[in-house]
């Protein structure tokens, strides 16, 4: 499998969407309210649609999704984090969808190979970001318990946010500007939700950019084992 700069970028963005979609799919039948069954599945489907387009730019979507080992995945560590409670899922959504909205807005505006996908996806991710923002407000500014859960979730995932701004080869955006805009946007939402902006580091000793290099956290291998098991059990079969 040869990987050019363009397809490396498609893999990175495609893996983000694929892995987060999978995590959201784990919520099916477990959401706190029926409307959220619909909303979370809706977001998962949007992301899966994006993943399929992006992976197809890099090769065969199923080969790439089902036959790569953990070390060959290029997604951010943020998106592979387990769902945790609803607040963890929402914090992950807030951080990632804000990033995706800013990034895809840039990509849609330029002339590159990602422009057509980004132009379509930016409408979807605007909805994802709004959904995450609305829930961050409700949990942060809801009850004492929800405030505390949202605070903990926001802090626990903060360490994975730095890696989003490690430049991806083949994606031509100003990563520093993107990071500044992201910090402004997320901080504003957290403050409106009566939450403090976390003060901890935004990346650990090797977390920054690690997912992009195929260095993942421990739960990811287990997630892939479940995702790939059936496909791998029937080599060459069509589904």
């Amino acid at each position, binding site marked *: 499998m040869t990987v050019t700069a363009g397809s490396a970028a498609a893999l990175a963005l495609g893996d983000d969407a694929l892995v987060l979609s999978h995590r959201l799919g784990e919520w099916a*039948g477990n959401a*706190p*309210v029926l409307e959220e069954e619909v909303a979370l*599945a809706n977001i998962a489907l949007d992301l899966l649609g994006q993943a399929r387009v992006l992976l197809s730019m890099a090769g065969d979507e199923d080969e790439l999704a089902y036959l790569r080992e953990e070390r060959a995945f290029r997604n951010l560590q943020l998106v592979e984090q387990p769902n945790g409670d609803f607040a963890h899922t929402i914090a992950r959504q807030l951080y990632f969808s804000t990033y995706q909205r800013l990034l895809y807005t840039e990509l849609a505006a330029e002339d590159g190979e990602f422009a057509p996908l980004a132009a379509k996806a930016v409408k979807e991710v605007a909805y994802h970001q709004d959904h995450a923002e609305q829930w961050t407000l409700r949990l942060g500014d*809801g009850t004492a318990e*929800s405030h505390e859960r949202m605070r903990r979730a926001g802090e626990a995932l903060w360490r994975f946010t730095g890696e989003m701004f490690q430049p991806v080869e083949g994606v031509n955006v100003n990563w520093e500007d993107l990071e500044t805009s992201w910090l402004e946007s997320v901080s504003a939402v957290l403050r409106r939700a009566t939450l403090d902006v976390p003060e901890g580091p935004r990346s650990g000793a090797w977390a920054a950019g690690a997912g992009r290099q195929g260095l993942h956290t421990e739960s990811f291998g287990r997630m892939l084992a479940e995702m790939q098991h059936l496909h791998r059990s029937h080599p060459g079969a069509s589904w």
Partner: protein
Amino acid sequence: MATAAEHRTARAGADGTADEAARTAAYEAVFDAAVAADDRIEPRDWMPDAYRSTLVRQIAQHAHSEIIGMQPEANWITRAPSLRRKAILMAKVQDEAGHGLYLYSAAETLGTSRDELLDKLHTGRQKYSSIFNYPTLTWADVGAIGWLVDGAAITNQVPLCRCSYGPYARAMVRICKEESFHQRQGYELLLTLSRGTPEQHEMAQDAVNRWWWPSLMMFGPPDDESAHSAQSMAWKIKRHSNDELRQRFVDICVPQAESLGLTLPDPELKWNEERGHHDFGAIDWTEFREVLKGNGPCNEQRITQRRRAHDEGAWVREAAAAYAGKHAAGNGEARA
């Protein structure tokens, strides 16, 4: 045919009657005439208490079935063997949540609430379809559910599009369109497996073997043992008997199984020229009753997961309510 306007005019006439019993009798005559004329009963129309409670029970059970029915299929979302199939399955499970929402709304027009109905589900006072107490053991089960379970549901539900209660009939029109789509997808999934590798074909056959009889049980007990049937048919909530619908379903499935290249697990299944229908073997009604009593393979697991999702989500619902209280219309966004 009596129009809704005539229905209301007649009811207004009845309002002029002084005596309580006479008034009820007059209301009942209007109601009976509307049902006889295939008029639709609407939420603000008078209806017999028993009609109302039968509908609440049936619509609630239908809604609960959509919600519990998400579980056996969601069981395979994280293991779907291709991205295309994964997208189809996610969309289907999402549709089921949506169907649950329509149906709870339809039930609410009868004066109950979603919270009340969910509470009855969680405490076992209302049921859901027996079929969802069977486990999904292989990927092919997703196809068998689409083809057989959704197929049986459609056979049951298409006549409900003409049900006498308007909100339920309209919900069924929307739901049946989506269900037909799911059923075709399930059929196509099984066809792909049936024509795939020998292992895939065997997987498809095994799934059909396990889902066939439970699907036939979805039509309910035989006509001579069906407690609610006669009244429901008189009220035009039901349009056909359990056994009629079951027969219709068998007749539809036999040629479909043939084109799938799969067999149905019933040695007594054969065409009866004289009746113009397929004869089929006896259903294991003992198993059916055990599943209804809570002793099916997954009853405990299904209701436990539903309760857990609800209980673990309580703090989220409380947060949303508290936030709404603090930011009541007009002062929320402005103050923030």
